[in-house]
């Protein structure tokens, strides 16, 4: 059977209630406040090894952004109630995006290792 029949059965077009939307809105605004507030605090850094340092501020800011994104994707964009195919599509999008970033970085990061 192709998906249209499956999805028809498992997904009787779920309607999300306005209260959920409202809760998400508040959460998003809360996160926005949080990230702005956090950005003014020096969260310090973590010296992993000599010369390799992780700064917490951008990490936290991006973590909050990811949390916000997840809320939007799951609820506003209904992915939580969608078919596996939609979930897979979203996941593959992030996967290829990460491939672009990480594989390019393999070059830039390892350039410093040797004398080339």
């Amino acid at each position, binding site marked *: 059977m192709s*998906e*249209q029949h499956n*999805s*028809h059965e498992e997904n009787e*077009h779920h*309607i*999300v*209630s*306005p209260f959920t*939307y*409202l809760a*998400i*809105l508040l959460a*998003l*605004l809360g996160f*926005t406040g949080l*990230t*702005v507030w956090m*950005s*003014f*605090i*020096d*969260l310090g850094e973590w010296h992993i090894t000599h010369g390799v340092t992780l700064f917490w*501020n*951008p990490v936290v*800011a*991006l973590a*909050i*952004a990811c949390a*916000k*994104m997840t809320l*939007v*994707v799951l*609820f*506003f*964009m*209904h992915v939580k109630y969608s*078919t596996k*195919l*939609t979930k897979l*599509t*979203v996941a*593959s*999008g*992030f996967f*290829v*995006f990460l491939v*672009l*970033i990480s594989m*390019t*970085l393999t070059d*830039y990061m390892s350039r410093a290792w040797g004398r080339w």
Partner: protein
Amino acid sequence: MSDSTAVANGAVADAHHHHPSYQRHHFETVEQQFDATNFAMWLFLLTEVMFFGGLFMAYLLMRNWYYQAFVEASHQLNIGWGTANTAVLILSSFTMAMGVWSAEMRKKKLLLLFLGLTWLLGMAFLGIKSIEYTEKWEKHHVPGLNWSEASFLNPASDPEVHEKYPKDQPLSADMASKTEMYFFLYFAMTGMHALHMIIGISILTFMIIRARSGAYTNGHVTYVENFGLYWHFVDIIWIFLFPLLYLISRY
């Protein structure tokens, strides 16, 4: 064709009985039509992810290379406007989601209200953005067109920002020239985002006109739903642009 051998007689012909008017001829059922267009929208959003992906990659690299320039240049952005815009966009995402809900519940008045609100909030976002752009123009921070590095070579010449960030050192000439890169990426990324907003608002205008004649409250929510996906996606891009451009070097 009598000899088309794969054809079984009338097994699926029942799909032809009760079509709603909005069902396109080549779909068997409304669900199929909804699933297909919804899936297509998601795929389109994937292409958008990759489209912005290139810009994010460039930003990541340049920020790591010219950290000092990027930090001081980002102090030029107005965090108040940025936060306001984030809130506006999140609100518009909410009203859009409510718009989809109204269409699903077949409430025409509510749909019009929420689409209208979304439209207004979208315009508000662009308004705030244009205020920010004007600010940049006045301060000669538009790379290529109206550019000066003065406020980075000598932060004291820009008392407004300098007061808030007294720790900012004067940048050496070679580093100061890299602030132009920051603003280039700033304009490229926010500009590309604003372009998506403008496209979104144009489609929204068209939708509001159609919604008045009840086009989306007759059970055919695909269009509203798909536009909602697009609108939320544009919101998500901003959710990442905001911390990356405005926030991460404020402490």
